[in-house]
C-alpha cells in the first residue's frame, strides 16, 4: 500500500497534475466522469440499503390481518414482545446453534487447507485449489438435493445433524478461500526468523503463524456464520422436521407474517453493525499504534 502515496489522489478519470498536462476540455470531462461515478456508486449502495430500511420500518408496523406486508400505523407492540411466538424464537435459536457449530468445524478444516496452500509448495496444489472452488460453482438446489439423495440412500433421517453437515460442506470453501486471500501478502520471513532463533515448528506455528492469520480467520468465521444463518435452499432440502429461522419465515409466508420476524431481523442487523464497527475501530487503533 506504499504506492498509494505516489499518486496524489489516485484520480484516474480526472487530472493527475504532476504527471502530465491534459488539455483543458479533458479535465472538464474527467470531473463530470468522476461525478457520475460517485453518483452511480452511492445510488447502488442506496439500492442495497432500501430493503433493509423497509425491514426496520416494518418492525414498527401494526399490520391489519396476519401479513405484515403493507404499512398501517406505527406501533411498538412487536418490539415490546419480540419473543411472542415460541416457534419463531426456537427457530432462531436453532439457526444460531447450527451457525455456531458448523462455523467452528468449517473454520478448523478450512484454515488448515488455506495455510497449507499459502505456506507450502506441494504436488497437486493446483488440484486442491480447483477442488475448493468447484462446490462454489454448483447451484444450491444441486448441493441440497444431491446431499438429500445421499442421506436417503443411507437411510439417515434428516434433521439438525444433516443441516450442520450440509452447512459445513459449503462453508469450508469460503473459509479456505477467505483465509488464503487474507494471508497471501504477509511477511513470512518472520517464520524463518523464529526458527533461526531456535523455535521448533510447532512453537513457531503458535507464536508466529497463528497470530498473523488470526484476522483472516475471524473474517472467515464471520462470513461463514452469516452464510449459515442466511441459508435457506440447502437447509430446506435437508432439514426434516427441524425448523431454522429462514425455514420458519418460509412457512410463515403462507400462514401469516408477524412483525416479530422483522424485529428479530433488525436485532440481527444491529448486532452485525455493532460487530463490524468494533472490528473497524479495533483495526484502526492497531494501525495507529
Amino acid at each position: 500500500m506504499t504506492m498509494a502515496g505516489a499518486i496524489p489522489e489516485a484520480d484516474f478519470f480526472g487530472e493527475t497534475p504532476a504527471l502530465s498536462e491534459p488539455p483543458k476540455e479533458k479535465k472538464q470531462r474527467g470531473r463530470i466522469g468522476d461525478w457520475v461515478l460517485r453518483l452511480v456508486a452511492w445510488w447502488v449502495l442506496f439500492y442495497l440499503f432500501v430493503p433493509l430500511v423497509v425491514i426496520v420500518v416494518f418492525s414498527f408496523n401494526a399490520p391489519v390481518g396476519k401479513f405484515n406486508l403493507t404499512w398501517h400505523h406505527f406501533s411498538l407492540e412487536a418490539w415490546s414482545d419480540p419473543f411472542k411466538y415460541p416457534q419463531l424464537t426456537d427457530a432462531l435459536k436453532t439457526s444460531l446453534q447450527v451457525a455456531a457449530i458448523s462455523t467452528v468445524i468449517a473454520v478448523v478444516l478450512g484454515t488448515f487447507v488455506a495455510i497449507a496452500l499459502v505456506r507450502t509448495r506441494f504436488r497437486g496444489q493446483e488440484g486442491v485449489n480447483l477442488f475448493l472452488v468447484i462446490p462454489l460453482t454448483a447451484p444450491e438446489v444441486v448441493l441440497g438435493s444431491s446431499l438429500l439423495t445421499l442421506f436417503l440412500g443411507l437411510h439417515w433421517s434428516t434433521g439438525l445433524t444433516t443441516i450442520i453437515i450440509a452447512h459445513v460442506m459449503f462453508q469450508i470453501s469460503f473459509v479456505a478461500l477467505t483465509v488464503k486471500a487474507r494471508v497471501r501478502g504477509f511477511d513470512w520471513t518472520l517464520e524463518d526468523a523464529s526458527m533461526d532463533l531456535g523455535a521448533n515448528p510447532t512453537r513457531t506455528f503458535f507464536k508466529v503463524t497463528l497470530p498473523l492469520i488470526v484476522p483472516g480467520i475471524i473474517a472467515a468465521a464471520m462470513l461463514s456464520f452469516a452464510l449459515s444463518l442466511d441459508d435457506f435452499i440447502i437447509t430446506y432440502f435437508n432439514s426434516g422436521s427441524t425448523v431454522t429461522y429462514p425455514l420458519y419465515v418460509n412457512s410463515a409466508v403462507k400462514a401469516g407474517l408477524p412483525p416479530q420476524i422483522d424485529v428479530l431481523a433488525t436485532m440481527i442487523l444491529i448486532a452485525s453493525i455493532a460487530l463490524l464497527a468494533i472490528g473497524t475501530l479495533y483495526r484502526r487503533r492497531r494501525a495507529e499504534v
Partner: protein
Amino acid sequence: MAGSAASGRKRSKIAPYLMCLPALAYLFIFFVIPLFTLLKTSLSVNTGSVFLPKLEFQWQWSNYHSAFNDYSSQITRSFVYAGIATLISLALAYPLAYYIAFKAGRAKNFMLGLVILPFFVTFLVRTLAWKTLLSDDGAVVHFLTTIHLIPGEGRILSTSWGVINGLVYNFLPFMVLPIYVSLEKIDLRLIEAARDLYSSSRRAFLKVVLPLSLPGVFAGTLLTFIPASGDFINAEYLGSTQTTVIGTVIEKQFLVVKDYPTAAALSFVLMAIILVMVLTYSRVLGTEDLV
C-alpha cells in the same frame, strides 16, 4: 512467492497433505459422493409408492428425456432470468467496485461494510421486503408510472421483472466483492506508467485497469449467474405461476411430489448446462485464475 518456497523446504514433505486431508475428505464425502448418488437416483425407477418411495437403479435414461420435454420452458426461463440479472448486476457492480477501490479514500471500509450488510438480514426476509417495495400500490411502481416507464395499470410484482430484480438484489454483493478485490490488487504504478506515456485516462482504463480486473469480473459473473439460475425463492415470492423456474420444479418434485428420479435428473441437467456455459465462458474470457 520465492520466499515461501524456501521456507517450505524446512517442513516435512507430508505436512501439507495432512493439513489438507480432513477438509478434502469432508468435501469428498459430502460433495462428490452426493453427486454420484444424485446421478444414480436420476437413472432409477420408483418401484414403491409415492408415500414410501423405493428406488431401483436401472439406467433409466428416459428420466432425462421427460425432464427435458416436460420442463423445457422452466429451464429456458431460469437461464434467461439469470442471464439478464447477471448483466444488470455487472453494470451496477463495476462502477461501485471501482469507486470503492480507487476513490473512496477513508470511506472505503465503511462502503465495503454497506455492501455486505444485506447478508446480515436473512435472504428470505430481504426478498419479502421487495414484495412490499414492489407491490402495486408501493413506491417503486408509483415512481415508474409517474415517469411513464411502465403504463398506468402496470405492475412489477408477480412479473418477470419482479423476479429479475430480486435476483439482482440478492446476488449483487457477490458481483461487487470479487471485482473490488481484483481492482484493489492492481499496482497503481502501472496506471501511472500509462499516464506518463501520455495515455488518456480513458485509454489507461481500457488498456490497463479493465484487463486487470477481468478475473474479478469472471468470478463475479459466475458467483451471480450460478446461484441465480438455480434459485427458486425469488421466482416464488416475487413472481407468479407464470414465472416458475427449474429450481421450483426440482424443489416441488423432491419435497412435495417425491418423484426423486425426475427431480434428480433435472438437478443434473441444470448442473450440466451450467458446466458447459462456464467452460465456454472461461475459454472466451481466457482466465484460469478464479480466485
